[in-house]
């Protein structure tokens, strides 16, 4: 039951991820990306990681993709304005894509497939356990990542200011 459900959701994730690339209209791409993130949420729920599932739901589906959609709607991309890709651009894209494929295939080959992944505790993904682990075992990385986010925020505000000298 769980395994077949996993394969169904995984198939859907891959399908919608491909649709992100293959749809012509950028707004449609973003909408397919939202559906892809929704399938990721289902994956987290299948892994019994409820907190990650809901955070993925709120942050990626609810906030980041709204901003993506927001920017794309403002840009007003038409069919005509996207047809500037030259052959050199296409070649560069092809080479970069092939490099990525080689890296991915190499990393998959390096994986030891006979090692089963064993969760230490089944309920690790519940809010209570996750919070305890974050604030004891992984306290330092957790705090450092919060400083990283803060500095990114300050940087974004600084970039958005037009005249830095007048501030």
């Amino acid at each position: 039951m769980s395994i077949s459900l996993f394969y169904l959701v995984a198939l859907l994730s891959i399908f919608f991820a491909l649709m992100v690339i293959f749809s012509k209209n950028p707004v449609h791409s973003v909408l397919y990306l939202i559906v892809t993130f929704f399938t990721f949420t289902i994956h987290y729920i299948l892994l019994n990681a409820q907190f990650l599932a809901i955070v993925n739901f709120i942050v990626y589906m609810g906030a980041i993709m709204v901003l993506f959609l927001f920017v794309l709607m403002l840009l007003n991309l038409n069919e005509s304005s996207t047809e500037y890709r030259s052959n050199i651009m296409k070649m560069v894209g092809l080479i970069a894509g092939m490099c990525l494929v080689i890296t991915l295939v190499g990393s998959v080959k390096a994986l030891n497939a006979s090692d089963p992944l064993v969760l230490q505790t089944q309920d690790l993904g519940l809010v209570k356990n996750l919070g305890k682990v974050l604030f004891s075992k992984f306290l330092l990385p957790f705090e450092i990542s919060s400083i990283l986010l803060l500095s990114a925020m300050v940087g974004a505000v600084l970039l958005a200011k037009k005249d830095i000298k007048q501030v």
Partner: protein
Amino acid sequence: MELAFIIEKFILITVIFLITLTIAAYSTLAERKIAGFLQDRVGPNRAGPGGMFQPLADGLKMFFKEEIIPAESSTTLFILGPSLALLTALIGSAVIPWGESVQIAGTLVSLQVTDINVGILYIFGVVSLGVYGIMIGGWASNNKFSLMGAIRAASQSISYEIPMGLSIIALLMTTNTLSMKEIAEQQHGINWNIFYQPLGFLIFLVCSFAETNRTPFDLPECETELVGGYHTEYSGFKMGAFMFSEYINMFVSSAVMSTLYFGGYNYPGMDWVNSMAGPLFGPLVGMAVLILKIFAFIFFFMWVRWTVPRFRYDQLMNLGWKVLIPLAIANIVITGIVITIIDKL
């Protein structure tokens, strides 16, 4: 056992769905009646006794109107917009505890569709999805006024989600749980969270007005600047779906506010009533109390709509970013200090 569980939940979901739709339909009538009352006129009174059948007449009118899909617009997304708005409005009620467990024929039946242990965050997620219906609909209309409305809706929703989340964090610090059921149980009798989190409630209330696009935050459909806002191009039942989803949102956010801050199904003297009414009717009295609280909030929403004028857009952004977010953070800090002091005593 499995089948009985599915049937039980199916009946519960159907009942909640019907209650939600009925209340949303009659909210349209209530809105017009209250507007009439506040403006010293009668309001709709022709369809049925005292205008009781006005929502039915409105619904029929919506059904029989011509559906217009603008040329050069994306048809799929044009239909998807209102559908998504209605869907996200309806799924929010899944985690709200409508009452204590009812005892029917010896078995306890929970009056909550699902008690996931991240209930509040689920509500928050559904709220943040709510803007997609408006954005997709506004963009697919291929009309600059609709697009402006959609973009306003998106930026307003993102801005007000932050203070809303921060005010919830302060609430979580006092309740120590994310489950809606446990939060409702903690507020037994008159031990309501409003007495512990008055500032948090105020912030949450303002943000709910913004998230449901109600006046004074209804800039996405500001008719003085944007014709009709995001639903300029919509007609017939798709327009009705947008309007209906606004009323359902109002109902669900009233239910959330009642549950989080005003005790949900709890009321003073509930133990006495429960011992008198028995395990079947006692919880139903609690549910009736919750619905009365929801009606009070819906009345408040309408009262504000017909009293306060709409904000200007810069005032809206200033209020969200420069007033509500600092207040919400201050609320978190104060709550933390008070909790520490009480723990030390």
